[in-house]
């Protein structure tokens, strides 16, 4: 997987390149907007990590130019501007995700993975499957093995989100945004309680456990053979 990081702050860039390389990505870097646009248009990247405020060319202008040129490479915007208005502006300009600085590296990693998979999953999927856990989007039913599991609507959405990102870390913020459409952090980790309820239903009477907590990052739903892999 090849990534392009366009970030002018030397320290942040070094930290991003190091972290992403260690996570198995090939990383190219540009510290300037115009050069970044040139690289993004020419190189064949799987995703772009883009700072908003750049010398030479503003990050949003860069994205606009890129999209105008018909290049659909998924782009994640990194910015210190974090109000909802700023996010909306970033996403409207052609960004696929928006992460506010300062951020946890695990959050960036999880979101990048989600972005990279977005292109890969076939939208026509009506059935999600992890090991013997199966979720039917049409009948809105969940089964593990032969047993049907009754879920509340919100639990169903939660499980769907986790299953769509199966094998990858999903952060609490991602869950809040995708399942609840809340763009703020509640003062208490209410998400933990929801997840543990879900875990009660899908893991309690079954083995092996599928839903795992990843410390300092979030949650991961994965089949047993993948244990030890990922985050």
């Amino acid at each position, binding site marked *: 997987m090849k990534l392009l990081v366009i970030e002018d702050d030397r320290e942040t860039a070094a930290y991003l390149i190091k972290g992403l390389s260690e996570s198995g990505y090939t990383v190219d870097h540009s510290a300037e907007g115009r050069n970044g646009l040139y690289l993004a248009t020419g190189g064949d990247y799987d995703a772009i990590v883009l700072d908003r405020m750049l010398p030479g060319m503003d990050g949003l202008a860069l994205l606009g130019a890129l999209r105008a040129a018909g290049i659909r490479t998924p782009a994640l915007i990194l910015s210190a501007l974090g109000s*909802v208005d700023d996010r909306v502006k970033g996403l409207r300009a052609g960004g696929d995700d928006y992460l506010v600085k300062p951020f946890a590296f695990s959050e960036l990693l999880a979101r990048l993975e989600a972005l990279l998979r977005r292109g890969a999953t076939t939208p026509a999927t009506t059935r999600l499957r992890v090991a013997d856990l199966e979720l039917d989007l049409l009948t809105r039913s969940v089964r593990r093995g032969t047993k049907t599991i009754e879920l509340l609507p919100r639990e169903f959405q939660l499980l769907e989100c986790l299953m769509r990102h199966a094998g990858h870390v999903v952060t609490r913020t991602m869950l809040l945004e995708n399942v609840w459409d809340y763009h703020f952090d509640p003062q208490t980790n209410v998400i933990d309680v929801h997840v543990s*309820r879900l875990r009660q239903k899908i893991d309690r009477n079954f083995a092996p456990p599928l839903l795992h907590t990843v*410390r300092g990052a979030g949650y991961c739903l994965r089949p047993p053979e993948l244990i030890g892999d990922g985050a």
Partner: protein
Amino acid sequence: MIATSLTLPAARRWNGGRGFARGARRLVRTHAVRLAALYFIVFAVSVLGVLLFVYWMSADFVERQTAATLDAEITGLAEQYALRGLSGLIQIVNARSAGDRGDGMLYLITSPDGKPLAGNIAGWPAGAKTHAGSVSFTVEVPVKGSMATHPAQGMLFVIPQNYRLLVGRDISDAATFRNRIKMTLVWSGLVALGVGLIGGSVMSRNMLRRVEQVNRTAERVMTGNLSDRVPVNSTSDEFDQLAANLNGMLDQIERLMTGMREVTDNVAHDLKTPLARLRARLELTLLAPADADAQTEAIRAAIDEADRLLATFNALLSIAEAEAGATRNRAEPLDLGELAHAAAELYEPLAEAEGVVLRVDGAPGVMVRGDRHILSQAIANLLDNALKYGVGERPGEIALTVAERDGRAALEVSDRGPGIPEADREAVFDRFVRLEPSRSTPGNGLGLSLVRAAARLHEGTVTLNDNAPGLAVRLEFPALAA
């Protein structure tokens, strides 16, 4: 103008002559004085016009009356002459001249050699012309024992054989009348102009004074005295409205400034502490030779600390966003009950885990206009607080109710916890304020600050009430007609 210029503010006089002149020039330049001068000129011109018209009309009327009387006399005499010839004319003139009839009519018939034959004028008046036509002349009239010269107006006729007939009228009364009108008009004009001038200068001075008050207040505010206000005169005129609006603006500025100062102080204090803690923890890890596990644990703890700091920052930014009102353009019609249900649904498992019953009583269709994210966050913060601080010894119960009354949409979160003493109810809205019993629980003391900012953003109010026992937090917004 000059009079207006001289009505300088007394306070300027100590400046001495030069200051006085400068003050006068400045005053002349002011809009109020220019306006007053302009109105005075318009006023003077119209008063003058009206007076001239009145004078012209009355003079004309008197003249017409004289002419009409003369005409009637002449017609009468002409008839007599036609009927009875010269002797008849002399007779009738003599008859009419006899005694003072008080109508000021003058008659004179002279022979061809200029000898008076009949009439009440002693001799041919000096200066009067001798051919036919209208004549102006003077007559000597006895007034109170002495002789006075009166102006007269008349017609001269030449009768065949060179006899002459002069019919005239003493117009001294008319002239006196005209003079009196003239004087009356001149005096009333002067009085009107004087009153206009004084009134105008008083008015412009009054206006100037009030503008000056606004200016002085603005200057004092600019030099740092934020609590100064423009005086309001309780006349509720435009100046009072201006003053009230300016004062409202100053209130807002002062509140923002005070808020900002408080925030800066609070941020400095409340973020420095955890940052210092974080630094100390990392420093200790570096100093103490520990095994890899202990180091990992220390780093994890540091990350947790940093996350808490980030959460605090985010909360502060949310409050700032709500307070700045920058999100107003995202306002949309929202069902308050729906927002309440969504927030309650998020917190319900947590409540159950704490052994608290979370009851939602949301009337459907209570609509408000607002920002979904900020309102949701405010409701979530209230539930968060109720779960954290509103759970007493007895089995807890939290009620979230949404209702509409008198055009106000109200949302109330009430608990059965220890409540908040009345004295502290205002303070808890300030940033980072945490009351003594709750200091040990996790939290940043920003929850209610955001709730209040959200309420203000939506032109609403938030009040803390006694739920006996417990606390009831009530949010009220202007309701949107469903």
